[in-house]
Structure formats: structure tokens, C-alpha cells
């Protein structure tokens, strides 16, 4: 089937047009002060780079990382046991349980966020002043993206060779140690894709922080959105490039750490 090589070309061109070209456009825009894409009034300036020194940017970035970190952590702490219990249960209809996990995702996520907002502002819950806090944003992020953590872990657990666990138990290793030494290390690839899939939207989204945070929780996504709304494309582009670099750096470090951990275990 080697003769079909040329079929990859259109997709390659498409990716260059929609990934590489925008990056170049953004890079060029960072050096100009323009009103939106109106290039006739654009002037060369380094304003965007000067604005980077603003403390609010650092605060928003830090806050995004905090919200994303706790969202990922809670998703993992809730999601791993769920995936594990379903996968290792003797239920005959595991698939049905999984379908019930997918079902809430068929409800529009924006409307689910509005639902939480309405619930948080009922007389009983409004005493706790949840709206506008980091914890409420983290909570809603967790409930929205939890399936993204459960599914990859579940898939890996299902594909795992169960005889390894039996072997460990036969050799007299207790259940906890078997889990920590065999099951968990073998499921790490699922955990890492789950972590990335929750981390990305949690760190860069702006819908949840805007709606539940009511402007009090400012994440990097909110910052970029408000900058573009003010038609400051130069500064917005610079922030977008920096966010992409930060995300790629974090994901790559995470993947490296994970493969390193696996490597050392294989040697031991």
C-alpha cells in the first residue's frame, strides 16, 4: 500500500497552513501595536514585551497552574479508584456502567456549568460564598473533566495481563504491595494521558473561571480572552505563544518523568 503515500500530502499542507502559519502571524504581530488585524494603522513597537513585566500576568499564570494542579490531583484521586473498581469488579455489564459515565457528557458542558452556578447561588449554598472562589472553580472543573481521567486509566487496566497480578499473589505478596508494585506501574500510561487531558483544559480554559469565578478568579485564559476583546492582538499573540510554550514544556517534562520512572523500575 506504499503507493498511497501522496495521500499524506494534503494533510501535511493543512497542518502547515493552520499550525505553522498562525504561529508566524502571531510572532509578527507581537512586534506591532495595531487595532485588531487592521494593518494600515500598525506601527512597530515593543509594547507587548514591555507589558510582560506586569505582575497581573504572573499572578494569572500562577493561579492557572494552581487550579490545574488541584483539578488534576482530585480527578486522579477520584478517577483512579473508579476506573480500578469498575475494571476489577465481577460485574457482567461493565460496558453499561461506562455508558452511564459518558451520559453526562452528552449534556452541553456550558449548560452544566450554568447548572452548578444556579445551585451555588441557592439560598442554602450561597451562605458559603462559593461563587468567585478558586475552590468552586476547581470543583466544577473536576466534575466537568473527570471522565477524561477515568477512560484512559480504565482502558489500560482492561488491557493489562491479569496473570501478572495472580503470579504476584501466588508468590505471597499482599494485595496492597501487588497494587503498588505491579498494577499501578503498569497503568501509568493511562494515568499520564488522563493527566494531560485534564490539565490542558483546566489550565487554559476560561469558561468555568469566567462563569463560576465571576471575574474574581483570573486565569491565563481569561487574560488572553480579555486582551483579544480589547483588540490588542500584539499582546494577545505574545501571551498565546507563551502559553503554548509553557504547556508543551510541562507536558514534555511530565512524559519524560513518567518514562524515566518506568525505565528505572524495569531495571530494578
Amino acid at each position, binding site marked *: 500500500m506504499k*503507493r498511497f503515500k501522496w495521500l499524506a500530502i494534503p*494533510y501535511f499542507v493543512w497542518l502547515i497552513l493552520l499550525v505553522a502559519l498562525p504561529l508566524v*502571524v502571531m510572532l509578527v504581530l507581537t512586534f506591532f501595536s495595531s487595532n485588531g488585524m487592521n494593518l494600515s494603522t500598525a506601527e512597530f513597537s515593543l509594547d507587548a514585551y514591555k507589558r510582560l513585566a506586569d505582575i497581573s500576568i504572573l499572578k494569572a499564570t500562577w493561579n492557572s497552574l494552581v487550579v490545574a494542579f488541584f483539578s488534576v490531583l482530585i480527578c486522579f484521586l477520584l478517577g483512579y479508584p473508579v476506573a480500578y473498581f469498575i475494571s476489577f469488579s465481577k460485574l457482567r455489564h461493565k460496558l453499561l456502567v461506562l455508558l452511564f*459515565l459518558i451520559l453526562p457528557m452528552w*449534556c452541553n458542558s456550558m449548560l452544566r456549568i450554568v447548572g452548578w452556578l444556579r445551585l451555588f447561588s441557592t439560598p442554602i449554598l450561597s451562605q458559603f460564598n462559593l461563587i468567585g472562589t478558586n475552590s468552586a472553580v476547581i470543583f466544577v472543573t473536576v*466534575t466537568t473533566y473527570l471522565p477524561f481521567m477515568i477512560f484512559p486509566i480504565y482502558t489500560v487496566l482492561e488491557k493489562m495481563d491479569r496473570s501478572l497480578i495472580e503470579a504476584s499473589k501466588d508468590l505471597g505478596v499482599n494485595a496492597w504491595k501487588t497494587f503498588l508494585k505491579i498494577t499501578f506501574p503498569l497503568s501509568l500510561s493511562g494515568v499520564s494521558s488522563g493527566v494531560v487531558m485534564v490539565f*490542558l483544559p483546566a*489550565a487554559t480554559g476560561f469558561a468555568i473561571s469566567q462563569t463560576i469565578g465571576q471575574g474574581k478568579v483570573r486565569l491565563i485564559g481569561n487574560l488572553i480572552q480579555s486582551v483579544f476583546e480589547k483588540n490588542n492582538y500584539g499582546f494577545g499573540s505574545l501571551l498565546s505563544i507563551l502559553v*503554548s510554550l509553557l504547556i508543551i514544556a510541562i507536558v514534555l517534562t511530565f512524559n519524560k518523568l513518567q518514562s524515566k520512572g518506568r525505565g528505572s523500575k524495569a531495571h530494578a
Partner: protein
Amino acid sequence: MLEKNGAKAIIISILKAIFVLAVLSLMYVPVVIIVYQSFNATANSITPLSWGGLTLDNYKEMFTNRQLYTSILDSLLVSFCATFIATIGGLFASIGINALDKKARRTMDFLNEIPMLNSEIVTGISIMLIFSLITPVFPDAFGFPSMLVAHVFFMLPYVILMILPKLEQTDESYFEAARDLGCSPAKALFKIVIPNLSTAILTGALIAFTLSIDDFVISFYTQGNGFSNFSNYVYSSYTKKNFSAGSYAFNALLTFISLAIVLFVSLRQTMPKKKKGEESL
């Protein structure tokens, strides 16, 4: 001793079930609120979630509120078209990528992952910038065309990641056999290779559609000229305080339909299995 262990095992499995159910119900709280609000006569009152009596007016809103039903129709239009294009495009791109030699293959694998690793907000802005560049030539580029391109763009990697592994497992000798028997390469591809991938193609299309119909951020940046989608209607109307309770009704309806499908599938699954169990007895 044995009995004690048995009791312990039962308690542990009950605790496990409670944990799973608790997490599940956490995800169902907003769904319940949406269904509740869809029947609530005072769904939009200032006191949140106060029960104002049972009504079906919210369901009528779906057909009378122009803004709401155009956003629903726009959503469906974009998602169906984009799924169709992305599935076909992803299929042929996968066949192409699969045929590449090792070095080119690695580059494509890397490029294919970029849209998935890029944050949604940057993807949305990227496509918005490209379309801003071409608006002087095509003034109507924003709206349906920009949103369609954006959705196809973020769907393609998912479709390809579903199809490519299956394609790698495909035995090439079937293709060779078809060729030897006089099929043209294209005919062999359509008659032998592609039918073999049907499950992967279907899964890819389903994932793509699910992501597309729910998308907010990327559509936020690529909407325009009066063309938007449902998520963006909810967001903008909620912030502008002209939110229609018909939105709840639309989503409750979707939930009922998917619940019916799930129950139907599960019933069909459980029926024959029960019979098998009896046979083995």
C-alpha cells in the same frame, strides 16, 4: 474465620460500589438540575432553582425563541458537516501516513499531535487570525466557513488516532491478493482495506461529533456574521441576561434520547447473555 473474611469482602465491595456511585452522582448533579429546570415554570427567576410549578412551556421555547433555535440548528449543521469531512479526510490522511517511510512518519506523527497538545484557546485564536487575513478578499469568511474549518481541524487528529493503529494491524497481503486478482489500486483500497476499518472509522466519527457539538472555546473565536453554536449561545445569553429556559429543555431532551439509547443497548446486551447463562446451567 472463613465467614469473617466473607463478611469483610462483602463490606469492602459495598464500600467500593458506594464510592463509584458517589463519584457518578457528582457528575449527574448538573444533569438533574438541567432536567428539573426544563420542567420548571420559573426556571429564569431571580431566586435560583425555586420551583414554580410543572410546565412544558420551556420545551415550546425551543421552537419559538429565534436565537435559541438558530443556535441549535447552526450547532447541528457545523457538527454534522465537520464530522463528515473530518472522517473522510482523516481516513485518507491515515492511509497516506501509514504508507510513509519511517522518518517522514515520525514527523507526521509529531505534527498530528500538535493540535491535540495545543490549548483550545490558542487553536481558536490561530484559526481566527488566518481567517482575519483572508477577510479583505472574502468578507463572509467568518461564520459557517471559519467554524467548519476550525472544527475539522481539531477533529482530524482524533479520527486519525482511531484509524491509524487499526490500519497498521491490517494484513497487507489482502490488498496484494486483490491486486493480483486484477483490482485497480483504488478498487482494492475501497473494497478490501476500507471496509476492514469500519469500526475504527465509526468510533472516530462518534468521538469527533461528541467533541464538536460540545465545543465552546474554539467556536468562540471562529463564530461571526450571526453564525454561532449552542455553547456560545448559552454563554453569551447568560452573561447578557436574556437566557432562554428552552436551553434546558433542549439538553434535557438530548439526555432523554441518549438515555433511551443506552437502555436499549443494555437491554439488547443483557438478553442474549441471560439465555447463555441458562444454557450453561
